[in-house]
């Protein structure tokens, strides 16, 4: 089975990740997921692709810590996080987060918390590549 936290260039399968999460416990009554995708339009411009840079070793350890923190904070049974780096075209997957808990509320809240925290503390940067040129993305609040 693939590790629960990964940073990778290749696309991922949501079905595989959910199956892996479900396989971790039969007490799981609710699974919440978040899928982040590359938009082909941003700030009034067409975006052909997005390029990611990361402080790889730190980003992976921060994601690991984020998963552990979420499991503890929300009493999850398990959680998985996969983030792509390299170049991602418009419409393709960027990040997948899944939280599994006994009940839906913890799963939903943990999923929202993990993507918000990821944006605050994981050293990954995205650059939008447009027909007019390239620009690093200024984070949204």
């Amino acid at each position, binding site marked *: 089975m693939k590790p629960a936290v990964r940073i990778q260039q290749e696309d991922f399968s949501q079905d595989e990740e959910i199956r892996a999460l479900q396989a971790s416990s039969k007490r799981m009554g609710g699974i919440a997921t978040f899928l*982040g995708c590359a938009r082909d339009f941003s700030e009034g411009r067409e975006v052909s692709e997005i390029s*990611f*840079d*990361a*402080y790889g*070793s*730190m*980003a992976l*350890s921060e994601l690991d810590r984020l998963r552990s923190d979420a499991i503890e904070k929300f009493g999850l049974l398990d959680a998985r996080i996969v*983030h792509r780096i390299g170049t991602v075209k418009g419409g393709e997957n*960027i*990040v997948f987060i899944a939280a599994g808990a006994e009940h839906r509320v913890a799963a939903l809240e943990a999923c929202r918390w993990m*993507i918000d925290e*990821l*944006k*605050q*503390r*994981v*050293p*990954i*940067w*995205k*650059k939008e590549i447009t027909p007019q040129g390239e620009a*690093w*993305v*200024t*984070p949204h609040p």
Partner: protein
Amino acid sequence: MIRVLFFGPVAERIGNNQAAVAFRPGIRLQDVRDELAAQYPQAFEIVCFAAANGEHVRDMSLPLADNSEVAFMARFSGG
């Protein structure tokens, strides 16, 4: 030697993804930042976070050991 890493928008403004600063006993993270910010003021305008040996650091008075790896980073935009 202190190894300094740059990523994304900071690396682009510096034109390189790493630098080295000579180690001296008592050197602190702030000293490394000051030295590099004087060389690359445009890049350091967007630096919001620092890390030492792969961990976030908020206290810039952190003393550094020889062969430390530090990073000065812009706001993150993953996800």
